[in-house]
């Protein structure tokens, strides 16, 4: 990721390359701790199971972070993220795989809106709208 897309290179309907992340226990735990979320269901499998969950699962702050990463991986380092709206769906458990897909829904005067979906084996984990700005051409 060295080059940033410019506004003229993006149009409504453009698709983002898919990104799949294996949700190993290490990913779930290391992101929970990096986001300062010490709720036991994100790092303690026995506690998570005792309350009826299949396993430990991703915390929301990480979902936000991964959505941001997914969009900036595509857009490049000079893109500026203005907002991320997430509708939460099924939990993303350790052992599952989280796959992101995205489509540009609008691009006007360098302001871009992208719809992102994060899917796991149980269904949609997150349905998101991300607003960002891209530099002008040239």
């Amino acid at each position: 990721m060295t080059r940033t897309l410019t506004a003229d290179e993006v149009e409504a309907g453009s698709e983002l390359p898919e990104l799949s992340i294996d949700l190993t226990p290490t990913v779930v735990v290391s992101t929970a701790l990096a986001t300062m979320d010490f709720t036991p269901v994100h790092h303690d499998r026995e506690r998570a199971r005792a309350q009826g969950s299949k396993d430990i699962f991703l915390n929301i702050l990480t979902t936000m972070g991964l959505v941001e990463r997914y969009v900036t991986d595509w857009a490049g380092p000079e893109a500026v993220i203005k907002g991320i709206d997430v509708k939460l769906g099924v939990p993303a458990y350790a052992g599952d795989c989280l796959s992101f897909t995205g489509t540009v829904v609008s691009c006007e005067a360098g302001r871009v809106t992208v719809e992102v979906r994060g899917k796991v084996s149980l269904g949609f984990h997150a349905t998101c709208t991300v607003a960002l700005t891209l530099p002008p051409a040239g």
Partner: protein
Amino acid sequence: MSGRDPRPATSVPAVAASPVSDDELRELAGKQAALGEVRGAPAPDPVNEPMIRHWLAAMGDANPAYLDKGLAPPAMAQVWTMQAPRPGARDRSPVDDLLAALDAGGYTGVVATNCEQTYHRYARLGERLTPATRFTDLAGPKRTALGVGYFATWNVTWYGDGDEPVAEMLFRVLKFRPREGTREDRPPYPLQPAVNQDTAFFWEGAKSGELRIQTCADCGRLRHPPGALCPRCRSSRLTYTVASGLGTLYSYVVHHHPPVPGRETPFVVGVVELPEGVRIVGNVVDCPPGQVEIGMALRVTYRPMDDRLVLPMWAPEEP
């Protein structure tokens, strides 16, 4: 106040008589909203490079822009003001009182539904963010797929050193009344343990993910299964010790026949020796019966059998 997580409903039985009525909930919601924006304590740490680097590494985010420019990834906004993992150090916000009242009203389940963040600018290295929480809306009671519940919405704004907003978040949770029975109407497990005053601590422990071993409060002797008197000093003063959850297989049988209600054969019943000095009977799971062997290292695992019963079982310890 930080976001709540989309954890599945706990299977706590619904409160029989609600001590908090719907009218009282609406009244409290109005009061909390009228408080307006309530400032919390400033972030314990200023925006700093080590936490950003740690976050980027955990997310697998290779974007060099943040550290090159001395800026924090915007999705880290909430990270700076998360609560420490110590109890008692909480900074109460208008939302906490309302969520507590919803719990008291029997709406004990919680699932986050929306998290919407707006970034006015990226936070800069060295600045200390201060959160301010505004309770905005309580909608309900509504029928949802999870049960009857309320949608509670609040907003958090993070202010920078110059007292201007850096980021804002809308957060919404559904607080719902877990249905009688269960989420999936799971039938009760046919083989229920006899729970009495001598053994209740053990089953409550299993539900909260603890393997509790009865311990004599006078001489400290551990014993299992639980009983009324200490076999060494005959004291009736009891307490318990939380075991490490590790063990080795002392003996076992593979049950093939006859059929057992609620179970699929074959299954393994083991006697597990704990390093704490007692033996306990339990199923050996996550391992084909043919690969079970005496002396194998095991670790306890907690299996919900129905909405109320959790059985401690034993799985091969992962190397």
